[in-house]
C-alpha cells in the first residue's frame, strides 16, 4: 500500500526521506500548496482587511471572505457566516463554554462531557460549571472507548443544558455515534458541542446534516497552519450567543455608554483576523478535496487496520480502543511494562516519530487504567513501509528491554 499523495508534495518529508512520521494526530505536515497560498497572500494581497478604503485592502478582504467560503464548503456548511475563524479547537471550545455557558448556565443546570475528552473539551466545561454552580457530569464509555449512549440516555434530564463530546477520540481513534448523541440531547432540549479536531482531517464532516449545534476544528491537524481553527455553529445558536471578546471589527456602533454588535461572522471575530491562517486553511481544504475525503478515509482505515493487525499480534502489546476496522487513523498501545516515553525515545533513534504520554486526556488515562500510552497516527503521506518500520521497531524495543 503506497501513500495517497506524493511525498514530494511535503518539503519536510522529501528532504528527510527516512523519517517515519506517525504523529499526525498531534499535527500534520504541510503540503507546498498550503505554504505557497499563505506566502502568495503576503506577497500579493497583503493589507488589513475590512475597513480599508483602498483597493489593496479590498483584495485582502476578498481573500479572507473567499477562504471562509472554501472552508464552509469543505465542512458542508451552507451558511458561510456560520463559520467563525478562531485560533484553533481549544479557542473554539473555550468560546462556546465561556460565551454561551455564561449566558445560559445556572445553578441546578447540568453539563455532560464524556470520559474520553481531550482536555480542551473537558476543562472549559468543568470550569464554567464550577463558575455557574452547574452540575458537571461525565458520561461513561463503552468498552471500545465510544460514549456509552445507553448510559447517556439515562443520565440526561430536563436540567441537561449541553452535551460536549468528541467526534473522534484523539487517543483511541474511536468514532462516536454523533446522530445517536444528538437525538438524546434534542429529546431533552440540550445543545450539542462536538470536538472535531480528530475528525475533520480524516472524513467529510457534513455539518448541516450532522445535527450538532457547534463543531470545532483546528487547521494544523488538517494540513493547514498552526494558530488557525474554526467554530461552526447553527445560525440560531450563534445569533443567540453573546460576544466572546470585544474590540475592533466586531462592533456596529460604539456609543459612550453602550455598544451594538456587528453581524455574523464578524461579531465573534474581534480584532484583526489571521487572514494568512484562513488562506492556508482554505488551501488545505482544497488540497484534501482534490484527493477526495472518501479516499482519505479509506486510505487511513486501511493503514490503521494493517497497523492494528501487526501491532496487536505482538506478544505483551495491549492496543487500546476499538478493533482495526472501527477506528480512525490512530493507534494507542502499551508494550509490556516499557514506559511509553522510553518506547518513543527508542523509536526516535530509528527516525520514527510517535507520541507518548497522556495525550491531554488524563481523565481517559484513568479510565483505561494506564499512566500513559504510546500513540501512532497515520495520514495521507504514510504508507505500508511506515507500518512495517513501526512493527519492527516495537519488536526491537521489546528485545532491548528484554520483555518476554
Amino acid at each position: 500500500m503506497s501513500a495517497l499523495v506524493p511525498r514530494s508534495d511535503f518539503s519536510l518529508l522529501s528532504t528527510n526521506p527516512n523519517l517515519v512520521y506517525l504523529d499526525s494526530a498531534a499535527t500534520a505536515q504541510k503540503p507546498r500548496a498550503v505554504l505557497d497560498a499563505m506566502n502568495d497572500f503576503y506577497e500579493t494581497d497583503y493589507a488589513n482587511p475590512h475597513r480599508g478604503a483602498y483597493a489593496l485592502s479590498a483584495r485582502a478582504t476578498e481573500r479572507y471572505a473567499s477562504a471562509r467560503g472554501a472552508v464552509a464548503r469543505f465542512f458542508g456548511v451552507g451558511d458561510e457566516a456560520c463559520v467563525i475563524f478562531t485560533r484553533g479547537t481549544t479557542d473554539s471550545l473555550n468560546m462556546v463554554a465561556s460565551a454561551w455557558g455564561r449566558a445560559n448556565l445556572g445553578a441546578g443546570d447540568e453539563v455532560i462531557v464524556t470520559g474520553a475528552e481531550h482536555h480542551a473539551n473537558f476543562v472549559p466545561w468543568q470550569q464554567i460549571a464550577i463558575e455557574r454552580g452547574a452540575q458537571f457530569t461525565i458520561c461513561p464509555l463503552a468498552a471500545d472507548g465510544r460514549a456509552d449512549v445507553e448510559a447517556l440516555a439515562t443520565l440526561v434530564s430536563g436540567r441537561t443544558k449541553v452535551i460536549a463530546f468528541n467526534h473522534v477520540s484523539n487517543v483511541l481513534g474511536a468514532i462516536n455515534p454523533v446522530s445517536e448523541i444528538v437525538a438524546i440531547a434534542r429529546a431533552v432540549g440540550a445543545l450539542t458541542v462536538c470536538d472535531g479536531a480528530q475528525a475533520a482531517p480524516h472524513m467529510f464532516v457534513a455539518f448541516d446534516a450532522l445535527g450538532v449545534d457547534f463543531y470545532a476544528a483546528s487547521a494544523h491537524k488538517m494540513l493547514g497552519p498552526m494558530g488557525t481553527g474554526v467554530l461552526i455553529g447553527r445560525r440560531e445558536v450563534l445569533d443567540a450567543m453573546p460576544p466572546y471578546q470585544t474590540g475592533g471589527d466586531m462592533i456596529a456602533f460604539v456609543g459612550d455608554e453602550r455598544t451594538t454588535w456587528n453581524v455574523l461572522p464578524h461579531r465573534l471575530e474581534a480584532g484583526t483576523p489571521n487572514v494568512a491562517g484562513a488562506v492556508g486553511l482554505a488551501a488545505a481544504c482544497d488540497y484534501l478535496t482534490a484527493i477526495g475525503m472518501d479516499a482519505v478515509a479509506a486510505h487511513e482505515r486501511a493503514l490503521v487496520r494493517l497497523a492494528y493487525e501487526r501491532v496487536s499480534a505482538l506478544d505483551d502489546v495491549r492496543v487500546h480502543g476499538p478493533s482495526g476496522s472501527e477506528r480512525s487513523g490512530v493507534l494507542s498501545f502499551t508494550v509490556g511494562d516499557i514506559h511509553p516515553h522510553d518506547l518513543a525515545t527508542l523509536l526516535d533513534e530509528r527516525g520514527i516519530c510517535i507520541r507518548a504520554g497522556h495525550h491531554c486526556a488524563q481523565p481517559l488515562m484513568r479510565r483505561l487504567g494506564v499512566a500513559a500510552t504510546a500513540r501512532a497516527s497515520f495520514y495521507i503521506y504514510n504508507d505500508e513501509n511506515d507500518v512495517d518500520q513501526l512493527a519492527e521497531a516495537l519488536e526491537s524495543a521489546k528485545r532491548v528491554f528484554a520483555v518476554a
Partner: protein
Amino acid sequence: MTDTSALYQEVILDHNRRPRNFSVMADATVEERGVNPLCGDELTLYLRMDGDRIADASFQGSGCAISRASASMMTSLVKGKTRAEADVLVEQFRGLATGRTAMDDLPPALRAFAGVARLPQRVKCAVLAWHTLHSALAEGAGGAEGAER
C-alpha cells in the same frame, strides 16, 4: 538494524529491571516527593541521616526507565556520603545532563547517562531523583523546602 540503543545502555536497563534500594524506609529521617507533572513520573526519596552523613537511602515510585535507573544509581552512590559530598554529586549530575560537566569528573556509573544530554526532552527524567535529593538535603539541613527549584 541491531537491537542496540545509544541511550539505553546495559547498565541503565539493568537498574531499570532490578532497581536498587527500591523500598519504603520505615526509619527515614527525611522523606521527599518529586514529580514531573508533564510526563507523570513520580518518586519518593527516603534518607536516614546520621548527623551530617547519609546513613541510608531508598526510593519508591513509578516512571520511565531513565528516571528509575537514575534514582537507583543515585541512592546507591550517596549512601555513606556526607551532605557536602552528596551536594557535589548533585551538581555534577545536573551538569552532565545539561552538558556542563566533563565526563571524566563523574563516577563511572553515571557516565551511562551522557546520552541524555543530547535529548533535551528526556533530561527532566534523568534529573528528577537528583532534584529531589537536592530538596531533601536542603530540608534536612533546615533550609526551605524546595529552595532553588
